[in-house]
């Protein structure tokens, strides 16, 4: 029964990881920007939702809308104010990485100064666990997490496959020059990628605020998980990122079967390290050519 319980917890966590990883992967796929400040968008969205619901007592859809607007504005600002100026001078990916990490540090400390440095969480009746089978506790929020992840992923897949902008985004990841020849502005397509990629962290942030809770440093953790999931799943594949997130969530929880909880993060990074050594293209990515 413990195994089943861990499996359920793993699915719930995996769903949240999958959502954030898909956002990261979408941005990376379309723009080739290693957006390590992705975790900062998550932190901002989570804290604004918490502040809206717990402090100002807004109805939750309003708070969720507030969080979404903040995450999207943050993503767009990053593209406009940080990444685009850096990319003007043929910067290596590492320059982008350092700048994004700087933003991550700034956001983490600003959030800590404004909202305090301790753990916060939104208490709802949804996060109360119910004993479904003897010894198996499931909270409604677990089911909601999985359903929300599936719904968002389906909508995103349809968007990328069917709409004009979705196709442009996929085209941008293949060949930016051709996108320009086709008469589309790559900068505009990038902005859409940032807006959608940042918006999709919001459900994950809200669900985390209702389950594990938030702290100002959570952004770094989210960023590491998204990055790991993207690589494990295969860079450039959204489905891969989603599976990668799910796999890491499951691995982190199933590891509890034999290991103490403090080792769970180490498990994630051992999985990542082994993938990079033995199968760097991930399980759904395209094979890496020698550059």
């Amino acid at each position, binding site marked *: 029964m413990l195994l089943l319980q861990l499996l359920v917890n793993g699915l719930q966590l995996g769903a949240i990881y999958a959502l954030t990883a898909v956002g990261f992967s979408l941005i990376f796929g379309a723009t080739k920007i290693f957006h390590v400040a992705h975790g900062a968008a998550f932190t901002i969205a989570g804290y604004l939702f918490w502040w809206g619901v717990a402090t100002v007592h807004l109805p939750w859809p309003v708070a969720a809308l507030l969080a979404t607007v903040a995450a999207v504005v943050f993503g767009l600002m990053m593209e406009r104010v940080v990444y685009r100026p850096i990319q003007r001078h043929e910067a290596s990916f590492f320059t982008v990485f350092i700048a994004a990490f700087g933003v991550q540090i700034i956001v983490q400390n600003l959030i800590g100064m404004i909202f305090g440095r301790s753990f916060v969480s939104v208490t709802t009746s949804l996060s109360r666990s119910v004993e479904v089978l003897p010894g198996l506790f499931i909270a409604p929020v677990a089911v909601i997490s999985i359903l929300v992840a599936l719904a968002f992923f389906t909508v995103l897949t349809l968007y990328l496959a069917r709409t004009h902008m979705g196709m442009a985004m996929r085209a941008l990841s293949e060949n930016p020059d051709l996108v320009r020849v086709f008469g589309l502005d790559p900068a505009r397509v990038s902005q859409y990628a940032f807006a959608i990629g940042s918006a999709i962290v919001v459900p994950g942030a809200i669900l985390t605020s209702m389950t594990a809770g938030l702290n100002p440093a959570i952004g770094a953790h989210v960023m590491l998980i998204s990055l790991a999931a993207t690589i494990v799943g295969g860079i450039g594949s959204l489905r891969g990122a989603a599976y990668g997130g799910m796999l890491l969530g499951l691995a982190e929880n199933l590891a509890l079967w034999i290991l103490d909880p403090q080792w769970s993060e180490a498990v994630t990074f051992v999985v990542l390290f082994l993938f*990079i050594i033995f199968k760097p293209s991930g399980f759904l990515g395209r094979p890496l050519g020698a550059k």
Partner: protein
Amino acid sequence: MWAYVINLAVLISINAILAVTLNFILGYAGIFSIAHALFFGVGAYTATFVAMKFGAGFLTATAAGMALAALISLALALPALRVRGEYFVAASLGLQMLAITIFTEWKSVTGGIGGLTNIPAAKFFGFELSQPGHYLILSLICLGLVLLIMRALVRSSFGRSLKAIRDDETAAWAYGKNVAVIKTTAVVVSSALAAVAGSLYAFYLSFINVESFVLETSIQLMAMVIIGGTATLVGPLIGTVLILLLPAALSYLPYLPVTEIGSIQQIAYGLAMVLLMIYRPGGLWGFQETPKSREGGSP
């Protein structure tokens, strides 16, 4: 006042050793490691262990740390040989996070979160280093030696091969360079010398815990190298001094609330990273855009 200045100078020298050794793989070999704090930690814990268990002097303890760091660095060399760019960054990140867990959880050796206290003073041929001034001299000597080694390596044919690999690995390989051996050697040398800083740090503070060897440390070291200027000998030194003096300077500013000073320092440091990357990506001392890259730059 003097004690404060000496303390800052010792910490700057120790961090400068780390920045210079990181620059060796980052700037000259193009290996973007964010696991440098791992080797700093291995050096510190090993030196402490050897000194506390066997009463070893500074040289023996440091040598032990260097040996172990060199061995562990093979785990970093492996992904460096197989993948590049973002993939290598992610692999080194994985190692760094793993190391943090081990530093925290291997309580019998590392003392867990609480760390190790009462580390004996460093012994050097029977002479006990008890004054902070002694450590300043020792750190400066170590920094000087590390700089000399780096300078010699960079100017040798080994250094030229390294730069060739950084600029075009395939071409270097086609030219008959043994890429695997050269890259591995670079990683091993850099990591072993980083362990020297760890040993100095442990003996100087006589207290270490995992907080000093976390991801943030690796990022800070990387920022020192990048802000100062990669692939130069002076750049990392400038970066180290700037990054370590920034918090000191900020704490003298009036009107700042005392409880928020740590956060404000962090924000200033994050802001410096962002602004420098936007306006001076080559670092303060490093080479700026060459005429050639400017020509090819605009679409």
